[in-house]
């Protein structure tokens, strides 16, 4: 009995409007993704010429597209693609960025100076353009987009982590750890890193959202995963001209993108409000 009331009290601390909204939206998206992996109303690539551009119906929750494919199934598939790319992007950006930021922030010196110059130059360059460069030099595809966006995201993570490390490296707990003979590596990973958890989490959420939006923009332009296994942006690009005749075709993928981003965005706000 006691355990339950303790738990509810601790959970109550996390209760605010943003958190709830964020959890709900993210929950729906997550559900969609999970369901989509195992079960899909139709094969996303199955065309049915007789059923083109139908509206919302019990048979097709979001209608059909211009080739007779079920929009909802395609949305399920497309959001998985978007999610994978976004996750990969953030993994690369946050991973490499944190490492670089930690090292430059902790050690400073000439290495820091040079690195920061490179990072600053890269930082202002729009990520979409970097992806375009990458794609033009190599080929277009899911991995190319993920890698190029990931690289484009490194500077922002690096800067944030670096400034956190600059802030923390002169703190007393670092000094006492040094006095105890801790190696630098130990200090970086076991002492300072845990302290920047909050900032890092918040940046990762924001980065994820930006990645989703960037990927959507790129796939709208036709860059990234290719049809018929297209991601949400590409769907929107195809759907654009049919907005009058089959609005569900446009709004389906669009709303899903918005929900994805909004869900995480609200979650981030909710967490921030809790941390105070």
């Amino acid at each position, binding site marked *: 009995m006691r355990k339950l009331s303790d738990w509810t009290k601790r959970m109550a601390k996390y209760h605010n409007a943003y958190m709830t909204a964020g959890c709900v939206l993210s929950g729906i998206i997550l559900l969609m993704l999970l369901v989509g992996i195992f079960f899909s109303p139709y094969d996303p690539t199955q065309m049915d010429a007789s059923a083109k551009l139908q509206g919302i119906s019990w048979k097709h929750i979001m209608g059909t597209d211009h080739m007779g494919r079920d929009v909802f199934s395609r949305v399920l598939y497309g959001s998985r693609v978007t999610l994978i790319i976004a996750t990969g992007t953030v993994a690369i950006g946050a991973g490499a960025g944190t490492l670089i930021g930690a090292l430059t922030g902790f050690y400073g010196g000439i290495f820091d100076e040079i690195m920061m110059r490179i990072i600053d130059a890269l930082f*202002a*360059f729009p990520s979409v*353009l970097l992806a375009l460069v990458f794609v033009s030099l190599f080929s277009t595809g899911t991995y190319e987009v993920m890698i190029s966006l990931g690289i484009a995201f490194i500077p922002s993570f690096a800067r944030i982590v670096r400034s956190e490390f600059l802030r923390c490296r002169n703190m007393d707990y670092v000094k006492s750890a040094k006095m105890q003979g801790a190696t630098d590596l130990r200090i970086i990973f076991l002492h300072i890193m845990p302290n920047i958890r909050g900032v890092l989490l918040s940046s990762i959420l924001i980065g994820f959202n930006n990645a989703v939006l960037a990927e959507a923009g790129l796939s*709208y*332009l036709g860059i990234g995963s290719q049809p018929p296994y297209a991601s949400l942006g590409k769907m929107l690009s195809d759907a654009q001209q049919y907005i009058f005749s089959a609005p569900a075709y446009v709004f389906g993928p669009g709303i899903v993108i*918005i929900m994805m*981003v909004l869900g995480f965005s*609200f979650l981030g706000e909710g967490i921030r409000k809790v941390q105070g």
Partner: protein
Amino acid sequence: MRYVLKKVFMMALTLVVVSVCVFLAFHVIPGDPATRLLGTQGTPAQVEALREQMGLKDPLYQQYFRWAVSFLHGDLGTSYVYSQSVSSMLASKIPITFSLAMMSFVFMILISIPLGIYTARHENGMADRIIMTVNQIIMAIPPFFSGILITYIFGMMLHLFIPGGFISYDISIGGFLGYLIFPAIAIALPKAAMATKLLRGSVIDEASKDYTRTAYSRGNTVNGVLYRHVLQNAMIPVITFIGMALADMVAGSIVIEQVFGIPGISRILLTSISNRDYPVVEAIIMGIAMLVILINFLVDMIYRIIDPRISD
């Protein structure tokens, strides 16, 4: 003064480094242009001759200098696909994209500064909470989707403009700008939302600082404290964002131009990418990189004007 010189030096250095990177990327990675130009028709001897002629047998650094110098003179290379000078291909497109990006920038400033100040003044009031929530929703909408929605609502439903009916500036400046208003709004919305949030936070932070109390003690009104004291301090972090936003707006234009059918840089960039027409892509990317570096420099200069604590 030393600050300015230092920044100019950094700008030049960054330009050089970036140009080297761009050069290497587009001349080393893609492979041999001569082979591509001649296609399968060319014999190995012809390919070699062409390479000699194009200067591809010279050491890399020579090629780089040649490229850099001609770039600075306005010679942006020759298209692989159209055998036309890149500059002539881009000439008519650049003003269009530039105007679009500028308009978006102006809209962003016009929306975010008054809203940022207003929401900061009425913190936690009804209007503030509504605006902040709307803000978050706007930031979640990809610009091209809002572009599609705008096309639908303002174009097809309200008939305020003809979707796809781009009017060139040499036909009618009014029509040109009028058509660009809608795509500009689409680009500006998410950035304006972010800027509003940033400014609001910054003003709220500054308003709680001690110097505002001193200002009140001298008889300032709330507006006096806000506009004479707080705003200048509050703008400092916002300026960084605005600089970056401008660069992002150029990227945003690339996407939005496709939504509204605007014949700017976007179309030519995308076709060149799929055609592997590297000189064009290279010129555009280099141009944008130069712009970004310039914007950063300007932002640094503005900092110096606003915040005297930036030391030499």
